[in-house]
């Protein structure tokens, strides 16, 4: 191959990533499969670091890392109660880079829980679940999809930390499935189906394994795709609505490629439409390479931070699962400790009739929270002026209520993490726990 041939081939491969004109930039989005989900041009506010903090993007990158590391872990892990623990031990001590792959998978999972949650907080505080001005928006629906994605992330985490079949895994399944069985009427049946029997054995492990490696990630991929598609259909991030509201409407000749409602063109003697020109050059840049460049920065930063954290926080492996000894204290991972606190504190008795905290704190309260999150957009009566802006004045009360709930969850998580010792007793974070025998 001659030098010029090689050069033209190279250009063919990378011109979509480095377009030399605005026209080429537009073409790249059409021509390149990886870029097809981007708009040709993107508004400057959408690219801002400080509006969205790119939390959703970071979450998606973490999911990508999890998928790749997860596939390699699938080659090395054996989902059987006899060998699961030993295969994870092999990953830690025998397999080249095994402990790094497992550690990166684990830390990315922790980060993903955190970033999905932060993303939800950002969307709430910016009123981004509200419809703005464009036609056919359905942002409330996308908010619900997001809530479901948060739940799926938590389920993925739960089914994931069961797989090493160590003490953490065994007692988490014990408590988790007993919470399910506290549900009225169908509870015991659900536990039976989840475990594939009435004891925690091979049937339970293989079920959680298939859920973790196939069904739940598949749901995430399907819903994530829909989530992104909706963002495009809703006209981009909510701050774009903000932009079009703040922009003065100008009379322009109708654009042949656009549809307008009759109201837009009936006034005046000539055919003009009143429209806010958010796609005007002063507000937009070409997606390639401007958006792709920032995306690369986010991907790189996420990978670097996750990798560094992997070296700082070694993935723990507790003793092999032992049905006869419950660790003391038996703690869930941090993101479930607020639930562990709730099931601890919510058993109550009314006139000789006792309601198990497992039902109140484990099922009813979380269900109420989820339902409230899902319905919230439909009760938000604030005007379009509070779409896509941090701490809108009209939404002050809502934001305060929301932040109180967030802080309550954070406080319970803190108590569970740092202030609970043997027999779930309360200790100050700096207090040492009393010695307890692990066996008697």
């Amino acid at each position: 191959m001659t030098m010029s041939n090689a050069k033209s081939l190279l250009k063919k491969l990378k011109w979509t990533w480095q377009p030399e004109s605005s026209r080429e930039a537009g073409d790249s989005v059409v021509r390149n499969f990886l870029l097809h989900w981007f708009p040709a041009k993107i508004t400057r506010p959408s690219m801002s670091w400080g509006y969205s903090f790119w939390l959703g993007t970071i979450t998606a990158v973490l999911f990508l890392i999890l998928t790749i590391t997860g596939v390699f872990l699938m080659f090395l892990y054996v989902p059987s109660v006899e060998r699961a623990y030993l295969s994870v031990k092999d990953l830690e001590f025998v397999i080249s880079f095994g402990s790094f792959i497992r550690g990166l998978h684990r830390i990315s999972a922790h980060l993903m829980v955190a970033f999905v949650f932060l993303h939800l907080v950002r969307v709430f505080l910016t009123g981004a679940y509200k419809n703005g001005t464009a036609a056919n928006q359905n942002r409330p629906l996308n908010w619900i999809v997001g809530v479901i994605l948060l739940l799926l992330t938590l389920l993925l985490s739960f089914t994931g930390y069961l797989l090493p079949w160590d003490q953490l895994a065994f007692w988490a399944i014990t408590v988790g499935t007993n919470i399910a069985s506290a549900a009225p009427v169908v509870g015991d049946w659900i536990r039976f189906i989840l475990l594939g029997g009435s004891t925690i054995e091979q049937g339970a492990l293989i079920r959680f394994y298939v859920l973790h490696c196939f069904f739940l990630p598949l749901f995430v991929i399907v819903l994530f795709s829909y989530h992104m598609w909706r963002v495009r259909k809703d006209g981009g991030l909510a701050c774009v609505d903000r932009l079009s509201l703040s922009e003065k409407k100008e009379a322009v000749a109708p654009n042949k490629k656009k549809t307008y409602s009759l109201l837009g063109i009936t006034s005046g003697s000539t055919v003009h439409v009143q429209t806010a020109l958010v796609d005007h050059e002063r507000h937009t840049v070409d997606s390639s390479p401007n958006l792709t460049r920032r995306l690369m920065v986010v991907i790189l930063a996420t990978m670097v931070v996750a990798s560094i954290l992997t070296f700082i926080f070694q993935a723990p492996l507790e003793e092999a699962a032992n049905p006869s000894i419950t660790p003391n204290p038996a703690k869930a991972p941090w993101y479930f400790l607020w639930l562990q606190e709730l099931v601890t504190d919510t058993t109550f008795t009314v006139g000789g009739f006792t309601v198990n905290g497992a039902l109140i704190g484990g099922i009813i309260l979380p269900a109420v929270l989820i339902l409230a999150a899902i319905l919230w957009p439909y009760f938000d009566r604030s005007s379009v002026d509070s779409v896509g802006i941090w701490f809108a004045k009209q939404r002050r009360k809502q934001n305060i209520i929301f932040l109180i709930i967030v802080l309550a969850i954070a406080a319970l998580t803190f108590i569970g993490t740092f202030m609970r010792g043997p027999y779930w007793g309360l200790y100050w974070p700096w207090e040492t726990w009393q010695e307890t025998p692990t066996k008697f």
Partner: protein
Amino acid sequence: MKNVKSSPEGLTTRRSFLGKIGLTATLLGVAGQAFAFFRSLVPNVLYEPPQRFKVGTAEQFGEGAKFLEDKKLFIFRNKNTFYAMSAICTHLGCTVKMERLNQSKKVKVGSREIEEVAEFHCPCHGSRYYGDGTNYSGPAPKPLFFYKLEVAPEDGQLIVDLSKKVEKDFRLTV
């Protein structure tokens, strides 16, 4: 234009009738398969340890409590009487630990007073039970369960039956 789907009077035409049959057959087929797939996940046979099992002869138990680790069960002996108490916390199923008291303590359970030498505490959410299995603190909604004990006629071993719950006054005299 002539409506091909239904006749002007709203009567079903052959075309729309066959269409409906086709759609129904497809939906039924999918539903039937889905049922078969999910039904396969409900086990018909459980290869699990039996609910009723032998735990050894009376002589093998000393005075007081003995913990059978793999069965999550305490067997108590008081001279020639025996009873079996579950070690599974009634809150969320963790195994309670027996905490021996330094000296015996008198506690009031309901209307009567009992003397206890040990208590049962749960590591998961901090439920506490008196020596007789009565819950007194933490989220546990019920006392620990007691199970039926009997003597096997063929070899004199004690038999526990986890499928038969009994009152806490139950005693087997050997």
